[in-house]
């Protein structure tokens, strides 16, 4: 059976000369299939919103309705979680949502899903948590650290609660990255394994004799692949949504750190 992990290998499409950066050292500067897939996702998002807002009318056309509803969906989300100040963070959350959604969806159409690479999701997670820390420190200064000391907790419990809060805060970028990565990786592996069953059971049936029993098995596996594909479309949307929601929740912590 084909190796289910083969589809996640990053391959160089065009090799460019290596650069030496001052801090990071030698950087392998090549256009890989991951770069191409992310560029396509980015291009599709830009193209979609350019086309949908090209001819803005009071009575919107089909494309404009879709664009506006995605826009309104994330706007509602940011404002309902962060409150009035959510508008400031709306561009970031909206970019995250559309970019991750495009990458997840492309993973189902292309042979390569960029969000099934830990490097991609870890970058998005680290970016979000760095923004949270910077916003928290700028907005509320040192009282940002009150986040780790919930109010109304007696001092003897704080000895126990504060380390737990610090650990749970430190784990946020990891869970943010691993959730998206694990969901995408798991979904693609499951689809590939079931698709492999179809081929291997079909090959068994081609041998004739008792092997013909493989035909119903192959049909069952084929049905499972169809069902899993439908499920993966749901998961692709849900994970992009979850990433946006969690980014909003963490930003809310940072914005309102001074007063809880």
């Amino acid at each position, binding site marked *: 059976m084909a190796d289910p*992990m083969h589809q996640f290998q990053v391959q160089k499409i065009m090799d460019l000369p290596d650069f030496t950066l001052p801090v990071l050292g030698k950087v392998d500067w090549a256009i890989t299939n991951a770069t191409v897939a992310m560029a396509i996702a980015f291009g599709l998002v830009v193209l979609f919103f350019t086309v949908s807002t090209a001819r803005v009318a009071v009575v919107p056309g089909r494309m404009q309705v879709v664009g506006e509803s995605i826009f309104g969906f994330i706007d509602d*989300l940011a404002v*309902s*979680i962060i409150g009035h100040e959510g508008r400031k963070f709306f561009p970031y959350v909206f970019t995250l949502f559309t970019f991750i959604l495009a990458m997840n969806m492309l993973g189902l159409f292309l042979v390569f899903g960029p969000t099934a690479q830990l490097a991609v999701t870890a970058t998005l997670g680290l970016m979000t948590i760095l923004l949270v820390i910077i916003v928290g420190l700028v907005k509320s200064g040192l009282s940002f650290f009150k986040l780790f000391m919930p109010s109304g907790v007696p001092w003897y419990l704080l000895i126990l609660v504060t380390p737990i809060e610090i650990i749970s805060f430190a784990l946020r970028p990891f*869970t943010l990255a*691993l*959730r998206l*990565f*694990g*969901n995408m*990786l*798991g979904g693609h592996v499951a689809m590939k394994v079931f698709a492999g069953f179809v081929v291997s059971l079909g090959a068994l049936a081609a041998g004739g004799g008792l092997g013909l029993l493989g035909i119903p098995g192959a049909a069952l596996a084929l049905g499972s692949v169809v069902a899993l594909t439908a499920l993966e479309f749901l998961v692709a949307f*849900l994970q992009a*949504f*979850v990433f946006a*929601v*969690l980014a909003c*929740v963490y930003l809310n912590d940072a914005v309102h750190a001074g007063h809880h």
Partner: protein
Amino acid sequence: MDPAAAKYIGAGLATLGMIGAGIGVGTIFSGFLQGALRNPGAAGSQFTNLILGFALTEALGILSFVLGLLILFS
């Protein structure tokens, strides 16, 4: 024991952590459905909270899944 066999057994055992995440996700959706059927009017506004709880619970299961993959492929 053959080290390769031990690796496969370890990877299988690591993914057992997903049992807990499965129970947790089931509890969340059952709780949501129970509440939603008693008060359907308030159900729509709690969708974000539902997805949030689901995501936070599922992350722990995903951690064990990733751990299993790490054991298997490293």
